[in-house]
């Protein structure tokens, strides 16, 4: 992306003006870099915790830590870059990005690489690219763009159009199949509709419709997806097979107790009983080693980030920015809720990472890009109002 061209505000003379106007203003430096300090602190804190837990979960493997460090650097760079793009420019490019995303999704289904029975990746030169990650941001952008440009609350016809905008990529991703991502994208679109003022009665109707369609969903599901649901309903049924993950995860969490077994001392994780402990189940490692006290602290930090994000959304100056920022933050929370819910056995196992803690790159970049947009929304506000 030609980001530099989109940044007329990122020039010294324009940025200098407010600085000169308010020399005594302490927040100006952050303002100038388009960073939101509370949000940045929260994200850095979570990244730090993530690296510490990963060091333990990965069996004190420094090379793993270095790789994750590099990914974090890339992700924070993406955040920083996106923070420089003003919501106005973002809004302008939104339809194009959405269309490109859809085209790429179709391309993936047509020529993508198959990995672990799912077709998610597309190869561009040396890079492996996962278009569904891009859609996590462009779908709420598109819906916010469409609704934000018109009067709120949206009319029924507009809701239908917006609904199609969400359903098309969702179905394309579900075909890959990647149920977790499809769910998240559907959520992000739905959140825009919710924030846009869709009537509560319609929400209730949709909820009922969704529950009623569950049997149909069951019929459409792949065997492994059905197995996950069955395992979720009764993990003891197959303790050495599919239920093993969730049983061992619950043992790890429960045996952590109030204060935990201590960093690097979690027996479930250190002795290999806990599968996927560096990636999707890293929260179980954290819970085992730091106990309920650690868990409360971690959830508090996550909530602080979420509430800061929601505050930013509420303070945004146009509907597009408000809807987009709110949707992105709520999607971030869905990540957290689904991951912790799945690891602790109240939700079925859907392969969603815990943002900023789980090892892995692609979703990390997406999450941080979303925070870049949030920062952009917050830090471009005053400049515009000047």
């Amino acid at each position, binding site marked *: 992306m030609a980001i530099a061209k989109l940044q007329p505000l990122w020039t010294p003379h324009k940025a200098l003006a407010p600085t000169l106007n308010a020399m005594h203003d302490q927040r100006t430096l952050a303002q100038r870099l388009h960073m939101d300090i509370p949000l940045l602190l929260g994200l850095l804190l979570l990244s730090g915790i993530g690296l510490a837990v990963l060091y333990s979960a990965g069996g004190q493997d420094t090379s793993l830590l270095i790789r994750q460090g590099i990914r974090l650097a890339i992700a924070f760079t993406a955040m920083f870059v996106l923070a420089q793009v003003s919501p106005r420019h973002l809004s302008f490019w939104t339809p194009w990005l959405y269309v490109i995303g859809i085209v790429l999704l179709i391309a993936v289904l047509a020529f993508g690489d198959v990995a672990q029975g799912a077709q998610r990746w597309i190869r561009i030169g040396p890079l492996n690219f996962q278009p569904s990650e891009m859609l996590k941001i462009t779908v709420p952008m598109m819906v916010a763009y469409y609704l934000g*440009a*018109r*009067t*709120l*609350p949206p009319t029924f016809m507009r809701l239908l159009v917006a609904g199609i905008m969400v359903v098309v990529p969702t179905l394309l991703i579900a075909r890959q199949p990647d149920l977790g991502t499809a769910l998240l994208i559907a959520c992000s679109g739905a*959140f825009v509709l*919710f*924030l*846009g*003022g869709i009537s509560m009665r319609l929400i209730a109707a949709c909820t009922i419709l969704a529950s009623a369609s569950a049997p149909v969903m069951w019929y459409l599901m792949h065997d492994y997806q059905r197995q996950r649901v069955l395992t979720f309903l009764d993990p003891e049924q197959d303790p050495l097979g599919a239920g093993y993950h969730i049983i*061992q995860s*619950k*043992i*790890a*969490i*429960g*045996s*952590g*107790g*109030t204060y935990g077994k201590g960093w690097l001392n979690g*027996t*479930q994780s250190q*002795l*290999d*009983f806990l599968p996927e402990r560096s990636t999707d189940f890293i929260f179980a490692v954290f*819970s085992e080693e730091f*106990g*309920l006290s650690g*868990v*409360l602290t971690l*959830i508090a930090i*996550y*909530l602080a980030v*979420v*509430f800061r994000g*929601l505050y930013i*959304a*509420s303070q945004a100056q*146009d*509907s597009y920015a*408000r*809807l987009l920022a*709110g949707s992105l933050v*709520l999607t971030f*929370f869905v990540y957290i*809720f689904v991951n*912790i*819910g799945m690891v*602790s*056995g*109240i939700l079925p196992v859907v392969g969603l990472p815990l943002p900023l803690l789980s090892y892995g790159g692609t979703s990390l970049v997406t999450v941080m890009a979303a925070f870049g947009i949030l920062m952009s929304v917050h830090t471009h506000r005053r400049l*515009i109002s000047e």
Partner: protein
Amino acid sequence: MRSIHTIKDIAAEARIVKGRVIAACFGVLLLAGLLVLRMAQLQVVEYEHFSTLSEDNRVNIVALAPTRGLIYDRNGVELAQNTPTFTLEIVPENVEDMDALLFELGELMEITSEDIERFRGMLRKKRRFQSVPLRHRLNEEEVARFSVNRHRFPGADVQARLTRSYPLGASAVHLIGYVGSMNEEDLQRVDAAEYRGTTHIGKTGVEQAYESLLHGKPGIQRVETNAQGRILRVLERTDPVPGSNVTLTVDASLQAVAERALGLENGAVVAVDPATGGVLAFVSTPVYDPNPFVDGIDSRSYRSLLASPERPLFNRALNGQYPPGSIVKPFVGLAGLELEQVTADHEIFCPGYFRLPGRERRYRDWKKWGHGKVDVTRSIVESCDVYFYTLAGELGIGRLHDYLSLFGFGRRTGLILHGESAGLMPSEEWKQRSRGQAWFPGETLITGIGQGFMLATPLQLAMATATLSTRGVRLRPQVVLRRDDPTTQQGTVDLVPETLETIAPRLEANWQTIINAMADVVHGPKGTARRIGIGATYRIAGKTGTAQVFGVAQNEEYDEEKVDKKLRDHALFIAFAPVDNPRIALAVLVENGGGGSKIAAPIARKVMDHYFQQVLDTKDEQLILTATELPVAANP
């Protein structure tokens, strides 16, 4: 204000979104609260439960099998030892394709079809996640070759183990016995806690009888394991207590001499020390090698052992029940004297047959023309049947039964080896009880010469001889001389003579008469075993016996003419020596050997010669003294 949406009510729209953001805040708080509640439930409410599960995951208890005690003969010759060997073992639960694994392992080392057959047999009987041996006694090259390729064979591993082995091979197998893999039955019989980690258990012989002594106590190791079950570190360890080493009363060289003396014959030799009841030799032939049984003998070899007409697995010394024949004559004679039925100088005339008063049927003597006038001494020396027909008839089966029972006939000797046979001392009650038939007078007569229903084991005969030699002290036969405490290495003498019964002699002279008669059997000019008396440097008291090969079903109607040639008589001989200070008492049995004097007696002589010349201290004062008193045996 920069805005293209002129018709929008910006303030109202901002209110809508703000309202929804606030609603979302509540939603987020609600869901976060749900997560916190769930975590509190797992980490506080159910903490104990999960903590226990976690500990169970982490800590495994591994049993350490004790080292089995060794078995020595009385001079410290190793009879059973533990040899370090390498075994290729397989945990079937960790193997995906067993056939492929066996095939590929077969390319690496020799695995015979017998190995595979035995392995598959054991698969059916094993416990879960227990490893099953496929190949035993790998050589170093095979171990090395496997180790290099080990990654190719998940579920297979080479284990260094102590394997029981019997360095003397087949010798004394019926006494020592052997160990074998524990089976389902063994598992149910033993205390499972004592046998954690143990794979083998005594199956027969001393190995079985002294199992509790030889086994030891298992140790326990609490180890931390990972999810794959690999031991990461030892948290706590209690060492196993090895089993006690056991020294037997038998002399390996004497045992070997007796086995050689029996040669290819099927038979038994039991020699005991009359003073202690300690078993000096315990032979049953043919013998077999117990070593293949340790690792599980392949079924073809086992079937051939079972099917052999020689019946090598049959313990003749312990379980062979034979009609004692003339062996009983000294005991019957003693009964006559002690029960005051006859006196030592009472004579009868032997015309070569005996007839019950008023009956036509003749009971023949082995000497067709008869012995002429005989007293008890001559009747024993020359083995006159008519005298004992007469005496038995006068004593009656009741008194005969009671008196001979004192010597242990028809009763188990109490040797600790499992499954001892009791023999049979018939009586009127016995016949009524077991067959519902009345006792016939003729049956009393043939009991007097050790035929008919009467049966005895070689062990019983040896013990009865010992009782006679000690003038009435019946001891329990014992096989263990000493046990070594495994921790202190201190030896405890285990052999305390145990008197089962003392027969109070009514008149010492009666016993002396019988014993002198038995001495004359060997040393007298007309003794049936006079040939073995020649050149003996010590005095032997003995008695020959020749037993017809007939089951107890035969009654007095037996006719020698009808005996199948294949069913030759059993040859028997009992003896003790020296006569005045008995150091050894023994019984020899040769199945279908023919006459006791020709076949059985020379074997006894060889055993006693070896015992007095090699085993006992030749400087033994009393022995030399006894030897000088020897009368010169007249040449026949």
